[in-house]
């Protein structure tokens, strides 16, 4: 059973939250994980659910040698030392 769109957004948010600080997730990792749980979920839903999380500022894209999706956090390099 595919998830309704708002539930999908929350499911992905939980996924990102659970991974925070442990593993950096790429958009494709999220898509693969959702499809594993909900094989009939349209890929486009997943794409736009991620977009919604980013557009609302609940998640951000980060770049550490590759692009990831994470919860917003302080920029390490911005800290003074």
């Amino acid at each position, binding site marked *: 059973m595919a998830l309704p769109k708002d539930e999908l957004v929350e499911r992905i948010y939980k996924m990102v939250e659970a991974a925070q600080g442990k593993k950096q997730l790429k958009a494709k990792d999220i898509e693969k994980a959702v499809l594993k749980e909900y094989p009939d979920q349209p890929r486009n839903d997943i794409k736009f659910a991620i977009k919604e999380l980013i*557009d609302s500022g609940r998640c951000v894209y980060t*770049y550490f040698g590759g692009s990831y999706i994470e919860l917003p956090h302080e920029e*390490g390099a911005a800290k003074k030392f």
Partner: protein
Amino acid sequence: MHKTPMLDHLESGPWPSFVKDLKRMAAQKSEVNDLLGQLERSYREKITHWKHGGIVGVLGYGSGIIGRYSDLPEEFPGLEHFHTMRINHPSAWFYSTQALRELCDIWDKHGSGVLNLHGSTGDIIFLGCRTEALEPCFADLTAKGWDIGGSGSAMRSPSCCVGPARCEWACYDTLEACYQVTQEFQFDLHRPSYPYKFKYKFSGCPNDCVAAVARADLSVIGVWKDDIRIDQSAVEAYAAGEIKPRGGGAHVDKLDIQADVVDLCPTHCMSWDGRKLTIDNKNCNHCMHCINLMPQALRPGTETGATILLGSHAPILEGAQMSWVIVPFMEMEPPFDEVKDLGYRITEWWAEHGKNRERVGELIMRLGMRAFLEAVELPPVPQSVIFPRSNPFFFWKQSDFDAEAKGRKYYTKEGFDVD
């Protein structure tokens, strides 16, 4: 002003110096003074004082802003934040002076004023923005119709040669193709969802002025499939020295058709009897050599389109690679659906199988051209063969045996799977 004895030395050479430019800007922008100061210090210490950021950006986008910080913010406060912004360039970098003024005004207002036209991605590069200035700068840019370009694991801003706007050799409209593909891939350009970067570059002919063959994952290079057009009287005029080579700018006064043109044809498909030039077009590999030497006598044919090549990149995981022919000839007419659609099929396969930071060319090296061609449903073509097979271990698949049993003699134009 910081003291910069080593940088000052660069001003003494014969070429225009960025040091002179930056000093002039430093009179108005203290961060540019700090930029010179920190660079001088790096020259002295032989280490960089830049740190990478990974988070800064504008809301909604994951691309186009590259975080930079100085590790000496006390000493060089203007460099505490010094982020790079990539601004998507217009096709073939055509601007009105008004557009350039707009860009400069916006950048003077929000950033350091230092810019680079253009980066190797093609984008306009704004160097030196503070985090809190990113959103207002972005807002002013979009209000004037500009947008940020690609960076990170995303579709990068496509770029193209000047093409039919100024060049008679263009075999298709590179500017329109570049524009259409840029519009098509907006989602993937701003929202990184690939294993790594992906670049489209469009050259109008095999001279490949944007070096698509070496710098683009997907290289679209104009080509013709009929015969090179020959004006025999102009060939004779070249031979007689009436038409000067390179418009008179060459080191010789007149072309030696045999030595300079015919003998240097890489496939030896031309001949010259002193009066008439003949080309065996079946064996021409479209290198452009003869056309470049005698532009008034020779021109590309009229049945034009593009060759599609895939996979070039600089050394990241593996060594550098050049692009590899995957479609020898494709019609290139607006709205360019075929090349867009191929792009989607390629990025889908690559996103599914690629490792983090693995470019599509590297994935093909790892999984094989065969796996790639099957996945994106392209027929294998002789033009893809780089060198004769030297490996005796070929792994046949059941579909090969089935196809042979059904009477396949060889690879067909339509495909390699008969069923």
